[in-house]
């Protein structure tokens, strides 16, 4: 791709050898990126699947790799249309390809750099309102060497730090939205990487699908009414994208929303909240304008705090994390409850609190939208006998039954008292059988 840049190879458990260009290697070497080694990819999933000790570090490099592969495939298939958009000839085409390739790779590399400790647990409670981990990406770039590294290589890559900032800032306008779709959409390379990576590390088969076939099937809907830069899939890849969507559904149901993992999400959120309160007087992370403070938080800080606090109080959150003792699940719905069942579980939660005064109860609702994939009109192009253009929503029979996951669970902190646990479970069973 770029003769003037040095290239290294990293060996990755999912993708084999990954090319890493010299400016990317410098970014990976920054303390801000190295911090990702200390952010578990799946919170405390390893308390359920013991292999799940992987971090955001490897995932970010995997996403960078897939972003570059996907852009290259799409560009080569749609070169004429893309050149037409900018005007010009071979020279301009080469420059555009390089620009899109490095934009996608750098955005992929940096997309998770603002993750909080343990990745997702507590995100809805531990950030200030309307703040997500993505809000830290641009401040981290600007407050570290990352932006200057990108700028130093602009002559060779066609991409400066402002290009990446504009690409990542959703309020900014970007001419080729398919590249944004590759990084952040219902069928982005982020999901393509994490499903396979999480499956391998958890030791499960649910998240597997035909990655190479999927990347090879990506293209553009060049006759789209939106101007022709909409991400699409070739008809031949239809079943591959179905399998990606189903893989995501099964991973949510079996791994990400596992009842024990969810229990530790609650416990972690409590513990991190306590740590933040001790440090700042409130239970939220420093905001993006205080990014240096924010970056001090990683998993090792939380584990260290947990070790310090484990014996303060009776079976507190820290003790639970250090010794792997979680709350008991006393009631759970199926993954797709109807509104009546949701009302029942809400009533049951209140009844439990009234009946068992000394027990702390937690109500958890695990919500995932795997069916949202089918609602997006990802265009399907080509196909010998079928319609020339269609969408997943109408073409995929396999996905028609897919529904939103909204699994409710009631957890009880019975302080490992098995008799108490049985009494609560019996009460829940009797209540719901009424």
């Amino acid at each position, binding site marked *: 791709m770029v003769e003037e840049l040095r290239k290294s190879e990293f060996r990755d458990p999912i993708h084999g050898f990954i090319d890493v260009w010299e400016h990317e290697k410098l970014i990976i070497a920054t303390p801000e990126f190295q911090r990702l080694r200390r952010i578990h990819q799946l919170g405390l999933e390893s308390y359920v699947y013991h292999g799940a000790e992987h971090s955001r570090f490897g995932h970010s490099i995997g996403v960078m790799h897939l972003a570059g592969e996907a852009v290259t495939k799409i560009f080569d298939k749609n070169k004429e249309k893309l050149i037409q958009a900018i005007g010009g000839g071979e020279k301009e085409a080469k420059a555009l390809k390089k620009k899109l390739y490095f934009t996608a790779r750098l955005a992929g590399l940096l997309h998770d750099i603002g993750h909080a400790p343990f990745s997702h647990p507590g995100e809805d409670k531990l950030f200030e309102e309307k703040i997500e981990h993505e809000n830290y990406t641009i401040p981290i770039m600007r407050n570290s060497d990352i932006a200057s590294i990108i700028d130093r290589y602009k002559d060779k890559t066609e991409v400066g730090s402002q290009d990446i900032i504009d690409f990542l800032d959703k309020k900014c306008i970007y001419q080729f939205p398919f590249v944004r779709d590759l990084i952040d959409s219902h069928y982005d390379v982020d999901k393509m990487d994490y499903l396979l990576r999480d499956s391998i590390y958890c030791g499960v088969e649910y998240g597997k699908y035909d990655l190479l076939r999927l990347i090879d099937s990506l293209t553009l809907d060049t006759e789209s009414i939106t101007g*022709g830069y909409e991400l699409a899939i070739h008809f031949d890849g239809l079943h591959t994208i179905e399998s990606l969507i189903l893989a995501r559904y099964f991973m949510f149901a079996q791994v990400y929303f596992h009842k024990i993992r969810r229990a530790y999400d609650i416990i972690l959120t409590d513990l991190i909240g306590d740590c933040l309160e001790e440090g700042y007087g409130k239970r939220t992370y420093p905001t993006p304008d205080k990014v240096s403070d924010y970056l001090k938080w990683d998993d090792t800080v939380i584990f260290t705090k947990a070790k310090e606090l484990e014996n303060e109080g009776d079976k507190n959150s820290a003790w639970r994390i250090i010794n792997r003792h979680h709350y008991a699940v006393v009631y759970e719905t199926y993954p797709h409850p109807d509104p009546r069942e949701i009302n029942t579980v809400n009533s049951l939660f209140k009844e439990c609190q009234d009946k068992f005064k000394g027990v702390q109860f937690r109500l958890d609702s695990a919500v995932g939208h795997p069916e949202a994939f089918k609602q997006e009109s990802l265009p399907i192009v080509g196909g010998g006998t079928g319609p020339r253009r269609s969408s997943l929503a109408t073409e995929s029979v396999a996905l028609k039954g897919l529904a939103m996951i909204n699994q409710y669970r009631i957890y009880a902190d019975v302080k490992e008292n098995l008799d108490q646990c049985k009494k609560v479970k019996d009460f829940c069973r009797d209540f719901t059988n009424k």
Partner: protein
Amino acid sequence: MAQEYRIAVIRYIVGKLRDVGKIRIQKLVYFLQWIFKVPFGYDYRMYHYGPYSDELNDDLIVMQLNKQVRVEADPSGYGYHIFPGSEAVTTRDDILEKYSSQIDKCLEAFGKFEPNQLEVLATLHFVKDIAGVSDKSKVIEKTAMLKPIFSKQLIEEAYRELENIRSSVS
């Protein structure tokens, strides 16, 4: 605005229009928020068919799950039809009382446009007000870059239309 209030307002709009596409509802709510100042609190990003809110889409999914709306794919493979669902929304008369006049004005001003016209109008608004491009010719140029399917003349006409609506509201 809390989700229960947002849902009440969306259900009111769907109830009024009876059959509304996803592009149309995205754009009407966009204008409600930014021109008619109904504080949904949605974040918008520029997507294929103009400004788009993931949070609004999530609210529609929740409403679909709760049967407050029914969503059907268009047989063409492009777009969806949203209909009132079988379950009523828990009455939030207070919120509707507070905002029904703005909603009705918004529907009067923008309800007559086709989805692709709404797409151009909302894109022009986004380029100017959200992306912060102040110069008129640049707003039109950027919109034309994002929407090459629409002629420059059509975009210019849409710009004038949008300005007329804005001045009538203010």
